[in-house]
């Protein structure tokens, strides 16, 4: 019996306390995913402002990097939501 199995079948005063770990973890995962999208959006907006304050030729690369990050986060979030719903 592994550790998680033992946690799942905790016994309190003769009654077996069991819960589904996955359903408990689903809600925080969805919140984290939404939070991550918001974070990526705020970061993108901040970079847009800062690139106007501090002007360097690398700003273009940074903006491209931020756009790629944004796409990666959105695709990752959609995939995660799909897997979370499937499980």
């Amino acid at each position, binding site marked *: 019996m*592994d550790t998680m199995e033992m946690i799942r079948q905790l016994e309190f005063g003769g009654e077996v306390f069991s819960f589904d770990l996955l359903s408990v973890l689903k809600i925080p*995962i969805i919140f984290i995913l939404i939070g991550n999208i918001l974070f990526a959006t705020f970061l993108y907006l901040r*970079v847009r*402002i800062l690139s106007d*304050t*501090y002007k360097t030729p690398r700003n273009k690369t940074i903006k491209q990097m931020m756009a790629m990050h944004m796409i*990666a986060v959105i695709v990752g979030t959609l995939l*995660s939501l799909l897997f979370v719903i499937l*499980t």
Partner: protein
Amino acid sequence: MAKRENPNLIPKKFRNLGKTFTENLTNKENPYFLPFPRDLSFYGKEKDEEVVLVVRSHWIKYLPFVAVSFLILFFPFIFAFLDTTFSENMVLFLAFFIPCLTLSLSVIVYAFIRWFYNVNIITDKRIIDLDFTSVVSHSLSEARLEKIEDITHKQLGLVGSLFDVGTVYFQTAGATPEIEFNSIGRPRVIQDILYDLLDSKKKGEI
């Protein structure tokens, strides 16, 4: 990137000052320490204003972000080790791994952006401290060279001693709050550069 060791790349007005700061500047070019950058500018830069130095914080300041990022990335593997259902069910594992991957990526990107936009600029007219404090805030402080009254640098703790990292404080006249160049490498070099610049400014050489 062009090397600045070539004395011809030092702007004309700094070449014959006879100060130690030009030697300090030209010998140490790296991404944290950019002397006389030709292609850099900032909002409100005057036409005749010359950027002397751009300093960024030391990489050690961002090491906790890298550590957190790796910890988040390994989190699903720790779960898989503790619970066999995670390792047996691929869809379940991916449902945890992909959010952790995107979160880990966000932490790394955030650390990089913080490093890139946390810049301290020294020009022949003023000092500028751009602080990227969080995704929802940033601050920009500046002080004219003639307003600087005192320069102090402090190196604290084991990290400061190991990596030669410290903070330079600029006391300015008037109601302007104190400007800080946080967690920069070789803070004494910045202090020397500023003292020489202030001296040249007072003598009207620049």
